[in-house]
């Protein structure tokens, strides 16, 4: 597979993943663009992998977790709507609830958020999340456990107890 083929067929999925991760389409675009610039320069190696997309997603996660300070310049999300009190475009309760949940997702630490996105958007197992995030499975469960508690999410199947984990960002 060439880089162009990869970008042509998988970029949309990577962008959706990055948008779920960041909660911000513009930021996701920056993130993916930044990663793809590096990917394109190293495609000879990355293209040889069994599943290049997994590696690219891992790079997206790494980039997301490592951004700091000036990378975080942008953007007061929904600033105008928040500040001017503009009505929501969809008054349905479900929509409003999702907006509220999305706003609360944004308040999670990036590691917690990453763990949630990998588990509940991507459907990864704890082992797969641990591999992507570079930590242990118990640490992953710790992130998920705390994130779910913060969001007041009741699971269909309760999580097992989790060990504490270190936050570096």
């Amino acid at each position, binding site marked *: 597979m060439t880089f162009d083929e990869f*970008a042509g067929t998988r*970029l*949309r999925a990577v*962008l*959706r*993943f990055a*948008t*779920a991760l960041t909660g*911000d389409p*513009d*930021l*996701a*675009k*920056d993130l*993916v*663009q*930044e990663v793809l*610039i*590096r990917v394109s*320069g*190293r495609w000879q*190696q*990355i293209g040889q992998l069994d599943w290049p997309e997994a590696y690219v997603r891992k*790079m997206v996660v*790494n980039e997301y977790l*490592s*951004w*700091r*300070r*000036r*990378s*975080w*310049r*942008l*953007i*007061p*999300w*929904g*600033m*105008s709507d*928040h*500040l001017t009190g503009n009505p929501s475009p969809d008054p349905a309760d*479900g929509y409003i609830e*999702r907006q509220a*949940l999305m706003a609360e*997702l*944004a308040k*999670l*630490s990036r590691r917690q958020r990453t763990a*949630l*996105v990998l588990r*509940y*958007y991507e459907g990864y197992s704890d082992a797969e999340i641990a591999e992507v995030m570079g930590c242990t499975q118990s640490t992953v469960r710790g992130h998920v456990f705390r994130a779910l508690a913060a*969001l*007041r*999410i*009741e699971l*269909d199947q309760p999580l097992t107890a989790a060990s504490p984990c270190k936050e*570096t*960002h």
Partner: protein
Amino acid sequence: MEVPGTAPARTEADLRAALAEQARRAPSAEDVLSALRQAGSRRRHQPAWAAPVAAAAAMVLVIGLAVAVSHGLFGTRQPGGPVSLPAAPVPFYVTTDVAITKVVVRSTATGKVVAVVPVTPAETTGVLVAPALATGGNGTFYLAAFQRGIAEEQIYRFRLTAGGHVTGFARLQGGALRPGWAVDALAVSANGSRIAVGAFYYPSHVNPGPEQSDQVVVINTHTGAHRTWRGGSLARGYNFFRVASLSWAGDRKLAVLGQWCRAVDPNPGGEGCSRWQRQAQLRAINPDGPGGRSVLDGRLLLRQAPRTFLAQALASPDGSVITAMVLRGKIIGNPQISGIFPANLSVEQISATTGHPLGVIYRRYLGDTSMISGTESNPLTLIADATGSHLILYGGICGLHCNTEFNGWLDAGRLVPLLPTGFAHREAAEAW
């Protein structure tokens, strides 16, 4: 478990729906692809890097070529365990966290919160502009932040009493930025009559348009009048401008460390600036001069040398000394990732009048620096107190397994960690 008075619990399906809804907002793949093609095209056609010719009339200091190193005098010890720490030279520091939940005053000696600055930042998705902080001396501090209910980012002023209490918190007259612009750097003149702002543009649905270069805005704190400087264009197409640091030499000279990039695409955040496509210069501009001019019209004080990265540079309040944070050497880490930051950090002082190096006051090996090559990443900050003699170093260039961050103040060549250690509160801006 539901606490009385709180919202009812949500289900796993609610969470999946919210995440899916966020993902549906993904930008167009074509936008990214076209930006990528432009970046690739630029890389293929650009000549090898070459240093720009120095301006003849200006004093040009090429740091990195002749820096005196006083090995005996300046140590390089990393912050370690709880050895007896020296007495903090400044009793309190003001800090914010990245989540912008609080702006607090902490005891430098203990790290304990002694006061909370009464600003209520707007909620965001977690990527809200980190507020900027600066000290104006005599216990006066300035803070830039978006606040709930106010569309433009505002500058606020407050004072810290000797006991660390916050008084006189108020919005500064004329301290509102234009919509779409936000503060990334702040510096206060010695007599407090002016504030310099490094402002950046954030495109959004209400602020449309392509990425723009930063601007330097000088605000008269008495009248609220604004004057604006643009970056200008260096030779060889370095025309995308970022403000890296601001400092005042007295009241009449503003030292602007600008970073110019020559690989910029029109998409938000799409600077795409590699190590070889970036230049930095420290320029002194006259804040009394007419606005609308270029930073490059100011006197050249310092220029980034080949194979270095000039991250920060501050002028002392009397204008006699420049303190620069410089990276040299190799980019360490994953060879599959093309970082831009050399791994050897040093803080060096240079005479602003003679151009002679005065010494290296701190050195640090940053370890793996390959993980960040971000378009706007400048994760190293040098913060001076009002006297210019006490420095905080903050930052770190690291990725997922990050253990090389640092946040401390300099004491005779060593970095004393600011408490609490470990970025437990995800500090985003500091001042003291």
